[in-house]
Every structure is written in C-alpha cells, then in structure tokens.
C-alpha cells in the first residue's frame, strides 16, 4: 500500500485568532469567558470542522475534546438560528458507547446554550438537544417525534433502532454531522462494526454524506482508526479524513510499585496484605483516588478488603462497575463530582469520559495489559489539560511486575500497541440485513454496495452476503417450513430481498445489538433471597464448596439449578476460587515481545553473576548489583520503585539458579513437571507472545498431543505461555516432546485449527454467542426475556444440527472466523512457527521436580479450555472409569 492521500495527519495547529475567528460570535464569547484559551486539539479542530473536514481527534481526558468538536458545530447551528433557517430537524447526531456519558454530554451542551440564551432571549430560536437511549421513556420518544432535537445524543444500539423508524427518519434527512465519542471503545470490537454499518445505512437513507468526527483516547495505528471512522464513498472511494493527535500533550508521571521488597519469596497472604496497605497509603495521601482493577470481581474484592482492613465506611469508598444497578452507579458518580468520596474502585466503567470531577491520582491494580490502556487510565487523573496526570501501577505478582515495568517504559518511549478491526463479521451483518429488509425492497447488488462502504466490510465476499440472505429467508430449511423460518423475503430470480411478516420488526428491535454476550445467573441464598448475579461461565467453573466474593461478601457455592446458583454465607476469610480471568484483556503482541527482549537482556547480563560464584543461593537478590554493570543499567531504566527492581532481580536470579535458563523472545522453554499430588502431569510452555498467539499455539500442541496419546488435554492459556495438563498415567519422554515440537513447527496451523477446534469448549461457547447475535437463538420474544430454561438449548446439539445443514452455514462460518481472526492471532502464530522451524527461536526441554519460578503464574492464572480426544467412545469409557475410581477412593 502506498501513502494514502485521503487519510492524513494534520501536523500544524492554527493560530489562536484564526481558530477563534471560525466560531460564531455568541459561541466564541461564551467560550472565552469560560476557557480563555483553546486547548491544543481545539487549535486544530475549530477551523477544520468549520471547513467541513472529516476529523479523528485523539487526546487525553480534560483536553476539551468534546468541545473541540461541538464549538464549531454549535457555531454553525447558531448561524442558522440567527438567520432564521434553523428548523425542528436533527442536524447533528452524537453517539457514545455509554448511556452515562450521554447524560453528561446532554448537560454539557445545554450549559453554554442556557448561558447564551439567557442573554439572547427569545429573539433567536433555541438550539435544542435531545437524548435517546434504551432508558428513554415511550412518552419522551413520542415527544421527540413531534419536535425533534437539533442535536441528538444517542448510543449505537438506539441509532440502529431509529434507522428503522420511518417517521423519525423523516427528521434525520437534515443530518450534517455525526460525532462518535470514545472511538477506542468501538473500533476494535463488534459493537463498533455494528455502528459502522449503521452509519452507512444512515447515509443511504438521507441520501447524502455527512461530516464525521471521531473522538477518543489514544489508539494505534491512528490511520486505521480513521479509515474505520470514514469508510468508503460510492462503494470504492475512500473518504477523506484528517487526524489530529494530541495524545502526548498532557504530561504524565507514573511508576510501577511492588508492594513488598521481595515478591518472589513473600507468601500470597503477605503480598495481599501489602497490596492493601499500599493502596491505603495512596488513598490517604491524596484527596481523591481512582483505582482500576481488571475484573468486576476484582473491584468487589478490593472494596471489600479496604473497608474491612482499614475501616473505611461506605461513604469513603465505593465500587463502580457494569454489574451494579444504574442508580447505584449514578449515586457514586454524583458523590465523586461533589468531592465526597475518598476513593472509587472500578473495572472499566470509569475508563470512559464520564464526568467524575477531579481525580488526583489513578492506581491500576495489576497489569492493564496494554500500553494504550495504561495511558488512557492514568490520563483520567489531573482534571485540566495543564495538570500533570499521576498514576501508579501496583503489581500483584512476579510476572505482573516485569510486565508493568516494561509497559511503562514503552509508554515513556511513546511506543503504543496496535488494535485491529474485526472484518466481515457475519453475525453483525445478519442483524443489519434484517434491519435493511424492513425498510424497503433491495436489489442484492445495491445492498451489497452499501455494506461494502463500511470499512469492516470493504472486502466482503458477495457469496457470503448472499448466503446470509438465504439463511435469513429460511432457504436452508425445506420449502414447507420456510414460512415459519424466514425472517425476510428473498427471491433468487429477481435477486432482491425485502420484508416479510409482522414478527420480524419486533425481533429486530428486541434482539438487536452485540452486547451483552454473557448470560448472567442469579445468586440466591437458601431462603430464596437474591444476592446478585454472576456470569454463566464463572458458574460453570464453580464446584460445590468453592468460596467466592460477591457484593463485598463471601459465599460458599452449594449447587445450581436452572440458571440459579444457590450459596451460603461463608465464614472463611479467603475466597478459594480466583476471579474470572477470561474477563481480562489479552496482552498485545508488541508488548509481549518487549517483555521477551527485556528478559533476554537482563538474563544475559546476570548469567555470569549467577553461574560464576559458588554458594550463590544465599546471596541471590541480596547481593547488590555491581555499579556500572549492564544489569544495573537495564534495571535503572525502568520507571519503577526500588522494591520492583529488587524483586525483578530476585526473580531472575532464582530462575537462573533453578533452571539455568530464562525463557525469552528467542527461547521457547518447555518444562515437564507435576503438581504436588502428582495426579496431573504439567507441560509448561514458556512462550511470550501474548495470549492471542498463544491461543493458537496452545491448541496446536494440545491437538497433536491428544492425537498422539489418545487423551483429553486440559489447557491453560495466558500471556506468558500456556500449560497443558494430562493424566499422570501417560508416560511422555523427552523424545516424545522433541517429536511434538518438530511436528507442530512444521504443521499447517490454520488447517489444523480449522479442522479440530470443534473438539474444544471454546467452540461451543463462541458458537452460542454468535448464534444469539445472528438471531438464531433469541434473547427476547414479544418484549419478554426468553425464560432461561427455554433459551438454554443444548449447544452441542445445536452445533451439530448446524453442521448437518452445511459446513458453510453462516452462523458456523462466523464462529470459525471469530475464533481464527478475532480471538486468535493466526498470522503471528504462523510467524512464530516459522522462526521455530528455521532456528530463529530455539527451544529447550527440561524436566523439573516442581514448577520453576517462571512457571508460577502460568499455572495459577489462565483461561481454561480443553481439547477432547477424537475417539468419543474411548472418552466416555475413560470418564466412566475415572468417576468409579473417585467413588472407590471416597467410599472405600
């Protein structure tokens, strides 16, 4: 690809006067009264938007991002109002992924308007702002239909519904601007893909192109984000877009903190205690602290512990995450704004630009898994643009420590990790085809052309498009049932499709959207009192007796029935089941490689120190690093505290002593070992390529192993490697492992995964989600949530039924695509296999009496999966034998 002429960075800001002169008089007056000076992004945007240029603006919180878009838009509307040409029509649509953010924007837009109009009086018609989300009442909607707002504030899902409201669309024909906020939350997932199609449909419905402004915290590469924002005109021609990058204009200070002097030898309990003590210190030192955890359950745990350990009351510390009720969240936001709370703990919900007043300090507990996210989160502190944002990452384990320190090093050097856009997602497209069919009769080519204008579908295959139409029209079932199965009408001879039946519109309204993917399960006490909810997938991991945290309290899992989990209050002080790790985001490939390189460089620098001296065990980590040595230079370069550096040193030296090797970017270490009870054999693959590449490699090795030994293989994947677990009865020697590596390295990864991923649990789980998004299984029917018992169709049966229809059945095809492209990183995995084959990456096989220091986190935190042996009959026999043995042991 050559240099794009249509997507360009705008490097030079306009002058203050030039920028301000592009604003309407009243707007400029108001702006100068309240802000005095335009912020850096505004020095680009005021003029460019007034010149009607598509723009992508990235800048941290507090940079006046929203106004950088809206001052110019309000200016144009004000000009129209003054000229008497402002009508009761929608001119601007603002879309954000969060309802809470919409409420903020609604308030923030009305503020200048209130001020301005209080002076102007009724002489100039008022610019109106309206809000439309899932929370908007029927009455408000009716009102909006009669008197549409000039600026419509909405969510991607509500926009998709509006597209199918013929009456409302009459008022949308005048749209000139579309502003999309929090682009970084949309460009990399199916929700954003869904929105990209809505925008093209909107353009087609109003018959003209509108200006697109994308706002977001930092993203990399920005060019990709811009392409995603603007799409294509007339099916082929890329639309223009300027990029304004003010990511680095806010100063930031950050550091990795290690809660104890030596994290390797501290007990979990000690680390835990120290983590909370560290948090407490930070909270006490600052006026307001925002703590980010990586999971909702993590948020719960932190709030529970801070309150219990340091006697903070509910008025001091609060939780804020998506599982809480809307009221609870609004309360917390309000308390924050009024400066009442000392500390708020959040998973992701406060990452976005909700107005929460002034935060002095951000603490990230555990690795945020990406440089970009680390910057976004820390950027939440320091209210204004001139303030310095300050933050700490508190590492929770030894691998975390290295990861966070290297990550902040990359942030300092402005090296960001990249995102990718899911392309040609058939489930999202299925929803839009239904939506489009509802509005009119389409020629297939006309509809296809429209879809291809959206960036994520620019390379869509026409065959796939037609296949989806066939699926939705019921062509996959016999003629006699088509009337029942068809959601849309399709005539292959005429090459056209359109609406059918009355039910479809309802189905579309009630089941549209790409979230939530997870089924939540109510948690109840024996007396029937409901305590809260957990995710179905978390439930599937719970065994009777497991203790977990919910709503700040501990519960013991007893049993589940029909999607209800029954629990008892637990007296124990420690949960036995770790939080749900698949919620965590994967580490980026780039960062994984950086960590691998860091490992190699530090290990090389330490090799002589550890290898040389006798009796080194006693001095490990305690002997000061030689001043001026390479090791000192490497450690000192890290943005981290002394505990961190000391712990990292300790960690590396112990690994070198124990295993003589530190796995790194050029060394794949395979460790054969066993758990304490010797029941299970562990094959630990130390491969630092990030979870998405490891997702591929782990399945490849598991499949080969399963076939070679005719066994079920348990899988545990995380960013630093993966673990395969086998029954200890299986004898595997070094030769077998050598053969395994050789055979995997020379295998056709794509083909093997495609053919065999069906034997994993992941396939079933993903298929279920895709089936819901493709309207194959419905969430809602006639306004009622479909009772879980009815919805809970045996996914194995459903999957095999789909396979019997056709291996290319769209829902199946999308499941494979999602796994191979969105979940896994096939390209990079193939690259790793090539390097392994050609010796660029060496491998080493060792056998250890117990897992080596670098294995510790690999076997404790990971996303679990399993590859079932091919031979189903043998699988059943073994399962039977296993269960009888368990019974014999227990009842003998």
């Amino acid at each position, binding site marked *: 690809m050559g240099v794009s002429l249509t997507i360009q960075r705008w490097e030079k800001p306009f002058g203050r006067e030039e920028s301000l002169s592009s604003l309407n008089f009243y707007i400029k007056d108001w702006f100068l009264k309240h802000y005095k000076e335009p912020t850096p992004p505004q020095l680009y945007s005021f003029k460019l938007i007034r010149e009607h240029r598509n723009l992508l603006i990235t800048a941290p919180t507090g940079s006046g991002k929203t106004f950088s878009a809206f001052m110019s838009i309000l200016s144009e509307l004000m000009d129209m109002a003054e000229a008497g040409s402002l009508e009761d029509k929608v001119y601007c649509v603002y879309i954000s992924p969060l309802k809470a953010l919409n409420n903020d924007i609604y308030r923030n837009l009305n503020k200048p308007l209130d001020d301005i109009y209080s002076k102007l009086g009724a002489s100039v018609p008022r610019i109106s702002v309206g809000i439309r989300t899932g929370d908007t009442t029927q009455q408000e909607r009716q009102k909006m239909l009669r008197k549409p707002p000039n600026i419509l504030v909405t969510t991607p899902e509500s926009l998709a519904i509006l597209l199918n409201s013929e009456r409302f669309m009459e008022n949308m024909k005048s749209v000139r601007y579309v502003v999309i906020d929090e682009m970084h939350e949309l460009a990399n997932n199916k929700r954003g893909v869904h929105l990209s199609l809505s925008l093209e449909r909107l353009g087609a419905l109003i018959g003209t192109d509108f200006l697109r402004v994308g706002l977001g915290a930092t993203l990399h590469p920005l060019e990709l984000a811009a392409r995603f924002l603007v799409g294509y005109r007339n099916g082929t021609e890329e639309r223009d877009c300027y990029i304004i990058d003010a990511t680095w204009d806010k100063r930031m200070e950050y550091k990795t903190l290690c809660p104890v002097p030596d994290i390797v030898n501290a007990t979990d309990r000690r680390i835990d205690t120290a983590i909370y003590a560290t948090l407490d210190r930070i909270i006490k030192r600052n006026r307001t602290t925002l703590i980010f955890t990586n999971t909702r359950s993590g948020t719960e745990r932190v709030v529970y512990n801070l309150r219990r350990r340091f006697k903070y009351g509910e008025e001091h510390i609060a939780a804020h995450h998506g599982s809480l009720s809307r009221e609870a969240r609004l309360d917390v936001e309000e308390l924050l704004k009024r400066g009442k709370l000392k500390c708020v703990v959040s998973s992701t919900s406060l990452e976005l630009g909700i107005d929460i007043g002034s935060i002095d300090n951000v603490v990230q507990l555990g690795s945020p898994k990406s440089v970009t996210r680390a910057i976004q989160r820390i950027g939440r502190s320091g209210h204004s643009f001139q303030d310095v944002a300050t933050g700490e990452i508190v590492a929770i384990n030894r691998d975390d420590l290295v990861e966070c320190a290297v990550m902040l090093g990359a942030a300092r050097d402005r090296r960001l990790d990249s995102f990718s856009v899911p392309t040609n997602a058939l489930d999202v497209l299925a929803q839009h085809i239904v939506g489009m069919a509802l509005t009119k009769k389409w020629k297939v080519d006309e509809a296809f052309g429209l879809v291809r204008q959206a960036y994520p579908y620019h390379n869509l295959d026409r065959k796939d498009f037609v296949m989806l139409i066939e699926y939705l029209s019921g062509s996959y079932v016999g003629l006699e049932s088509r009337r*029942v199965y068809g959601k849309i009408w399709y005539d292959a001879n005429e090459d056209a499709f359109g609406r059918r039946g009355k039910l479809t519109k309802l189905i579309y309204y009630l089941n549209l959207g790409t979230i939530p993917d997870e089924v939540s399960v109510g948690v109840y006490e024996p007396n029937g009192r409901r305590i809260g909810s957990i995710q179905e997938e978390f439930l599937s991991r719970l065994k009777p007796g497991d203790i977990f945290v919910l709503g700040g309290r501990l519960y013991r899992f007893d049993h589940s*029935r029909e999607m209800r989990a*029954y629990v008892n209050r637990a007296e124990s002080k420690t949960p036995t089941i770790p939080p749900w790790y698949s919620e965590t985001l994967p580490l980026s490939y780039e960062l994984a490689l950086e960590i691998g390189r860091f490992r190699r460089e530090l290990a090389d620098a330490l090799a002589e120190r550890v290898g040389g001296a006798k009796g080194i065990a006693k001095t490990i980590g305690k002997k000061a690093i030689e001043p001026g040595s390479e090791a000192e230079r490497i450690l000192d370069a890290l943005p981290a505290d002394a505990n961190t550096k000391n712990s990292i040193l300790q960690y590396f030296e112990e690994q070198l002593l124990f295993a003589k090797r530190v796995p790194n970017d050029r060394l794949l270490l395979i460790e054969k070992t066993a758990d304490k009870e010797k029941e299970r054999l562990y094959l630990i693959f130390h491969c630092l390529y990030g979870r998405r590449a490891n997702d591929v490699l782990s399945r490849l090795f598991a499949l080969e192993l399963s076939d070679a030994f005719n066994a*079920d293989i348990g899988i545990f994947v995380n960013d630093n490697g993966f673990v395969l677990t086998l029954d200890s009865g299986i004898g595997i020697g070094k030769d077998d492992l050598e053969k395994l590596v050789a055979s995997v390295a020379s295998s056709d990864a794509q083909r093997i995964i495609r053919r065999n991923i069906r034997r994993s649990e992941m396939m079933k789980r993903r298929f279920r989600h895709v089936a819901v998004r493709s309207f194959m*299984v419905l969430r809602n029917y006639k306004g009622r949530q479909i009772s879980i018992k009815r919805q809970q169709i*045996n996914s194995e049966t459903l999957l095999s*039924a789909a396979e019997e229809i056709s291996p290319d059945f769209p829902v199946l095809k999308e499941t494979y695509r999602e796994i191979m492209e969105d979940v896994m990183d096939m390209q990079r995995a193939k690259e790793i296999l090539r390097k392994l084959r050609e010796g660029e990456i060496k491998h080493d096989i060792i056998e250890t009496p117990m897992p080596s220091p670098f294995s510790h986190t690999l076997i404790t935190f990971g996303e679990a999966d*399993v590859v079932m042996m091919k031979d189903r009959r043998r699988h059943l026999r073994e*399962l039977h034998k296993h269960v009888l043995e368990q019974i014999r042991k227990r009842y003998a």
Partner: protein
Amino acid sequence: MRLTADLEIVDGLPVMHIRSLGALACADLHLGYEGVMASRGGFIPKINLKRIKETLGIAARKTGARSIIVDGDIKNEFSEVHAEEFNEFRELMHFLKEELRMKGLFLVKGNHDNFVDRLRQALGFELYRQEAEIGDYVFFHGEELPESKAKKTFVMGHLHPAIAVYNKVGVKEKLPCFLSGKMSDGREIVVLPAMNSFAGGVEVNRDDPSDIAPVFSKMLDVNGMRAYCFGEGETYDFGKVGQLRHV
C-alpha cells in the same frame, strides 16, 4: 445393559426394551420443538425427528420389538396446536407403523400433549390419560403421582435426568441417564431419559433431591437410585446418585 431379567437398556440409546411386552419404551420426544422455536423468530435447525427416527430404527432392529410405549411429552407445546408439531407427529406415527412395522403404539399423555386425542382414530394408536398398566408395568409421565396401587414396576419420563461429573482435566460434563431404584413403598421404578437432544437435562446428582421431582420427594429417594448413562453404542453403570454428589 440389563436392569432386570425383563428390562434392558438398548445399548447406547435413550430407549428401554421390555422383553415380556416385546416393546420399546421412551419418553419426552418434544416433536415440533424446532418449528415452535422458529415461529417465535429463532432458527433451530430441524434435527430432532430425524434423530428420533434413527434411534428408534436402530432399537427396533436390535431388539425385534413390535410395540412402542411413549411415556409422555411426545410433542412440545403446552397449549397451541402447532402445524409443525402436527406434521412431525404424523410423520413419526407413519414411520413407526409403515417402516418399523410396529403393531402396538401406546401413548401416555404428558403435560405437553393436548391435541393428540383427536388424531387417535385416524392414526390408530392407544392413548392413556394419566397412566397405563401394561403387563407387569405401570407407565406414567411423571408430573403427577401415579394412582395405581398395583405391585408392579413403574416407568416414568418428565424429569430429563442427567448426571454432571468432572473429567480428568477438571471440566464438567453432563450426561443424560436412566435412573433405576425403589420407591419408598418398595415398588421398583425406572426414569427414562429425554429423547429430545435439544433439551437440557436436570443434574440429578447436583440439584437438591426435593427440587428434582417435588411431587415425589416423599416417594422417591433419588440418592438411592442408580444412574445409567449411554452413548457411542455403549451403556455405563455410574452407580448410586448419592455417591456421585462429590465427584
């Protein structure tokens, strides 16, 4: 696998063979399930009837049985008379008579079987409202207690029993099963698994016994019953449900 001298599970299938009656027994077919789901807007591919026909075909060939007893819930919906159900029901009846040459078709009504009365004469089957005493057995669907005081073996469906066990690598697996044991008054009872493979099973070894079959909580000790699972042409005795609670 033989449960008694007269009763055997047709290996690998959710079907029982009763030698003294020369009959197969099965339950909970839920015909028309996919069509009913489709009429509400979903897309569940049709596979249930096809699999049921295959299963019964194999069972009939293996055992030579010339009669069949369906122990309730042959169709899916509670109230509506659904065309999809009607068509599939007819097709199955014809298949049993014409292709498997079944002489006796005995249907015990379940909570989902409302319209079948009207088809009785046209399709030629015996229909029982609550329970059917046939030979040494009392067949009843299972949503209500049987009335019969006869000292016979009771056979029911309705529960969709399954057991959930953790495999060697720690993953939970759910296996549909037959249950066999005694009622509190000492009479024998067998619970048939569901023929419909879309239906999720009730985890009898995980759920509270009083929740599994509320009406029977006094009569039926689920923990004392044996669970027999089937699949891939084989049947496995997993022992007593009570002992499966901890594995």
